[in-house]
């Protein structure tokens, strides 16, 4: 005897209770604090802030704790919170030339004004598990310090620009569109594409960038400059009539310099790809700059070779991991109504096919 299933409500409540218990894990092990995550899982926090499009290390750390370390789930929590916040206005453009750099490297010049500064990077570490960290470690010795000159650090691309070797990028005061307030519509201008890429999934962006390196719309890119550091954020307050500093954020900026032999419309010169991401997130910023460059094929008069990365519509509609994971995972929801109608159809088609076969055999 079949009784239709009730009790979805209780099942949900029980599932949530179990989830809460699993999130906490073994209670004999001390609980992680949000501050611990913020301080010691900083790169995860940075990714959540970048793809969540909300600069708040404490909230990002809380989201990571709540999501049991599932970063896409954490990004989702941040996005869902962010969208409820009132919008007071826009900042003035941040000046990355004034960045207090923790890291600043150029792959195109051996030395340059402002110097090469490695900063806290994994780059030249040997990837050997450090079993000392597994033991109750002591705090590492403080890293050596030196005086910095402060002051602005010029952009590498400016040097190239003085010689006219790189395409010019004149400042543009047009207010950029806001992806979070207006629906994404095609064709998307570069500012909108960059906005979408800044919050795009790191893995997706990385793979697309990698595909261009391997020859799918090849853009031979150099890291002209990568810089990580803090910049002040200023906002114009209408009542005051001038802008004031409202805070400071850490950014990663990557300017890639790309070989370009010229096209029907453009002379031979170096071209630019740009990446700018919240926090120390250099894999993402470099990837973003390569993808940005590849998507500029049309404006530079290059051929469309049909590579995925050249297809702005493909890239932008599939780069958002919150949209992607939601739609992907929705196939867990019941679909028995659609499935039932498919069952009926397949049975009908099979009957028809079976009858046709019988007919043939008889003939």
């Amino acid at each position: 005897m079949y009784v239709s299933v009730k009790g979805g409500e209780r099942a949900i409540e029980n599932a949530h209770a179990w989830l809460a218990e699993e999130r906490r894990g073994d209670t004999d092990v001390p609980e992680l604090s949000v501050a611990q995550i913020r301080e010691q899982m900083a790169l995860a926090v940075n990714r959540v802030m970048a793809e969540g499009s909300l600069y708040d290390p404490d909230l990002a750390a809380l989201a990571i704790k709540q999501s049991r370390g599932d970063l896409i789930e954490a990004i989702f929590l941040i996005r869902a919170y962010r969208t409820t916040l009132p919008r007071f206005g826009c900042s003035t453009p941040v000046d990355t030339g004034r960045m207090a750099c923790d890291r600043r490297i150029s792959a195109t010049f051996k030395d340059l004004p402002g110097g090469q500064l490695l900063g806290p990077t994994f780059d030249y570490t040997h990837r050997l598990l450090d079993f000392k960290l597994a033991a109750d470690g002591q705090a590492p010795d403080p890293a050596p310090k030196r005086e910095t000159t402060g002051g602005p650090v010029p952009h590498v691309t400016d040097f190239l620009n003085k010689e006219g070797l790189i395409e010019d990028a004149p400042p543009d005061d047009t207010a950029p569109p806001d992806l979070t307030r207006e629906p994404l519509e095609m064709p998307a201008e570069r500012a909108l594409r960059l906005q979408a890429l800044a919050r795009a999934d790191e893995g997706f962006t990385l793979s697309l960038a990698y595909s261009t390196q391997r020859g799918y719309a090849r853009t031979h890119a150099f890291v002209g400059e990568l810089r990580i550091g803090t910049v002040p954020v200023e906002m114009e307050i209408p009542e005051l009539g001038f802008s004031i500093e409202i805070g400071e954020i850490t950014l990663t900026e990557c300017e890639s310099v790309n070989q370009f032999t010229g096209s029907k419309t453009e002379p031979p010169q170096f071209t630019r790809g740009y990446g700018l991401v919240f926090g120390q997130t250099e894999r993402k910023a470099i990837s973003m700059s390569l993808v940005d460059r590849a998507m500029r094929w049309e404006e530079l008069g290059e051929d469309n070779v049909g590579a995925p990365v050249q297809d702005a519509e493909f890239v932008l509609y599939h780069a958002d991991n919150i949209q992607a994971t939601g739609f992907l995972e929705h196939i867990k929801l019941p679909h028995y109504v659609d499935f039932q109608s498919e069952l009926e159809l397949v049975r009908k088609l099979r009957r028809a096919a079976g009858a046709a076969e019988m007919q043939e055999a008889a003939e």
Partner: protein
Amino acid sequence: MTDQAYNFAYLDEQTKRMIRRAILKGLAIPGYQVPFASREMPMPYGWGTGGVQVSAAVMTADDTFKVIDQGADDTTNAVSIRKFFEATAQVATTTKTSDASVIQTRHRIPEEGLTEGQILVYQVPIPEPLRFLEPRESETRKMHSLEEYGLMHVKLYEDISRHGHIATSYAYPVRVEGRYVMDPSPIPKFDNPKLGGCPAIQLFGAGREQRIYALPPYTDVVSLDFEDHPFEASKADHPCGLCGAQDSYLDEVITDDAGARMFVCSDTDYCTGRQAAGHKGKDAA
């Protein structure tokens, strides 16, 4: 959720106004997909965020709200969405179709006829009926504006030449007021005839795809077909095992390891109503 931390029905008033504008535009151009700035909701994309935003935008404190998924009020996601609005809007909820003023649905239209004053809100995964024929949004928008629907007819024709039938059983495309071809969301084609001439307002929300579209009351809606292959609403050829209904859409339920099965109404409110009125199917206790 701390209920007081959020506005009535979760969304802020600015956002609701933006959504209402899209709804009004949709009602003015039946079947046309209106782009809107869909918000991230506290449930995942693909789980009804479009429907939830539309419901939130039309809901008032006096409304009575019903949510169904696959026709049932007690499927997990229907429960989750109902609880969301109970928490954020404190509206009355019901499982009874005729008592509801706003009904949010996924994949079904209730069996019981809707009435004037009711609003049926559909959750839509892929609003573009031409999407699987042409993946590019920039192209499909052009096709709609030029009324270029040849591709769709070719697809349906190819189905017939290959299978003898149109091989689309749900999300069966319709033409609205002789103009826009529209995706009715993944309802079984059994439900398609209920779309046209409906006294209720029908609103369609696609959150991830950022589209809203609408059918005002008594709109002309025609399922695409050919003269010699007319559209046919189909369902499992059985009566409901519990209430005996001959006219309702049925789910197939496997009842034992040997694969025995029975057929029951997918619309739980319709089925329980009939059982309460004394109707009995062959499998009823």
